């Protein structure tokens, strides 16, 4: 019992060490704070924003009302509160960001581990395919995919997921090669482990830290990509997203009419979330990779 307690104390201390290292990174903490705020707002949004406020026909505000009492960030072309829209848009942006990052990281990890494990011609073929996807302009590819499929949030997730994986695949492959060179892999093969056994039980747990850091960085990329696709009018027209708001603002002529409150809040939100994720990812990378930690 005391042994288990000891192990737990040690584990808690190790976690506390990571937390302290992360806390020492001011950029990472700032990013985390912004993310926590936005995440909380997105989760709690249904509590203080009712569906009417977001409806094109039921909204009560006037058209293009400048920021003032009742509407801290003004209203849009349909009399909806821009603040409500931005808060509601966080839900879609974060969902798409996370799911698309997950899809692309899963795909990239699968291809990276398989390419690194098998090497030889199968590995080469996989990496050439990866290169092909890497040089293909991701935006054009995503636009093409989003245009062919039905317009829905799922389409956006898939379009981002299948275009953003090459970086992950390369990083994971490199890490896989490093792990595969270690003697415990030889031991696993010697005890009769097959390919699946080696990849799942030995390589994957050892590449996961890299994958984790990669995921946080990819979320930022996915959110930017989602905003871009929505801005280009490829998003789901039935949902409110940051890119979608900016696109509506553009079609409503907000730029020429000087209706800044229609465009700037969603733009700032996109930038803030993407920046926060990047800063968190960098900080996490530094914490999980002791070599980076020392150099800082």
């Amino acid at each position, binding site marked *: 019992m005391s042994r288990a307690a000891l192990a737990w104390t040690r584990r808690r201390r190790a976690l506390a060490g990571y937390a302290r290292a992360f806390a020492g990174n001011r950029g990472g903490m700032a990013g985390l704070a912004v993310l926590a705020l936005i995440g909380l707002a997105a989760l709690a949004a249904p509590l203080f924003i009712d569906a009417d406020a977001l409806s094109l026909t039921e909204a009560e505000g006037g058209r293009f009302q400048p920021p003032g009492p009742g509407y801290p960030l003004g209203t849009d072309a349909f009399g909806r509160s821009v603040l409500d829209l931005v808060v509601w848009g966080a839900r879609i942006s974060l969902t798409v960001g996370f799911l698309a990052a997950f899809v692309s990281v899963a795909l990239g990890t699968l291809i990276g581990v398989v390419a690194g494990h098998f090497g030889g011609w199968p590995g080469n073929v996989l990496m050439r395919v990866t290169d092909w996807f890497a040089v293909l302009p991701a935006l054009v590819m995503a636009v093409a995919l989003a245009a062919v499929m039905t317009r829905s949030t799922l389409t956006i997730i898939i379009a981002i997921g299948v275009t953003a994986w090459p970086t992950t695949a390369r990083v994971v492959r490199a890490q896989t090669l490093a792990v595969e060179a270690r003697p415990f892999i030889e031991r696993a093969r*010697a005890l009769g482990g097959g390919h699946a056994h080696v990849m799942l039980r030995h390589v994957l747990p050892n590449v996961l830290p890299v994958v984790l850091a990669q995921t946080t960085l990819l979320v930022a990329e996915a959110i930017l990509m989602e905003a871009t696709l929505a801005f280009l009018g490829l998003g789901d027209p039935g949902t409110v997203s940051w890119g979608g708001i900016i696109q509506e603002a553009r079609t409503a002529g907000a730029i020429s009419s000087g209706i800044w409150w229609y465009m700037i809040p969603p733009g700032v939100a996109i930038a803030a979330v993407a920046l926060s994720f990047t800063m968190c990812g960098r900080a996490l990378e530094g914490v999980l990779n002791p070599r980076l930690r020392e150099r800082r």
Partner: protein
Amino acid sequence: MNPTEHRPDTPAPEPADAADRPGPDRCLEVDGLSVSYRAGGGEIPAVRGVSFDLEPGSKLGVAGESGCGKSTVALALLRLLPRSARISGRVLLDGEDVLDMRWGRLRAVRWAGASIVFQGAMHSLNPVQRVGDQIAEPLLVHGGAAPAQARSQVVELLEQVGLPAWRERSYPHELSGGQRQRAMIAMALACRPRLIIADEPTTALDVMIQAQILRLIDELVTGRDISMLMISHDLSVLAETCDRLAVMYAGRIVEEGPADEVFAAARHPYGAALSAAFPRVGDPASRRAPRGLPGDPPDPAELPSGCSFRPRCPEVQERCSEVDPVLWPAGPGRTAACVQVLPPEQDTRPPPGRDRASETTGE
């Protein structure tokens, strides 16, 4: 003992012709094993025609400097070499040729037929998995054991190697070097193999722990009729643990014989140099003047003509550059590959049956 009955964990069925074969009296038979690596457009020979046998329950030590092919031989026995290696010859494990095995059968034979205690236990354990899970790994891979059953077996194995049962929950970094090697030994015993290949099992351990580990291996192996192939550069360790000793140089066995005889009075100058390199307890003369052997083993890509040990040999003769000596009887149960032991009339041409020279003296 019937080998199939001996290995209840073997998942794949024995091939159909196994019953037709006469019961193997040797658990390992290596015949003319050669390994070469493809590198830089050429083929570099790492092992050049190694033959030896291992009877059930016997212990053979393989000695030699780094780079003489010891570990390559060990890995070739279970076909664990990288893809750039080309293997030829025969490796019969319980009468079955490992080099011709299909992939599934090979996987079944690995660990269940022969397991390996690797050098550097520190790196042979996965740092992110608990020790108990890793010891259970071969049990689960080779089917049979349910997780709960495997767990109780792990506890039993840990006890056998002298580790407390709660160590099962530890991660490798929480164990000392000796404890890790004990865990590796427990893992090697897990599937009750007939043969254990110990590849420098005591490297990087301090002398006290080395002695403990060697004693442990000896006890476990002797107690269950497991044969062992132990590889080391330390002739004194091998002489103490093994029944027979083979000395390797430049990819060949240059001397073979009963362990204490080879250690005490090697017939090949290289064997003599290896045994002289370790000071002997109780012999002040050797302690005051430990002798090393100057020079390095030859580059396998550019072996010297004649005897490959010629450039470093303290007893080099003129004919050494003309004759490439093969293993030749050098006393009862002993062979050596040196012109000094070749009969004078045979010295300019290879004797008949050169590859199986070791067998002619076997009886």
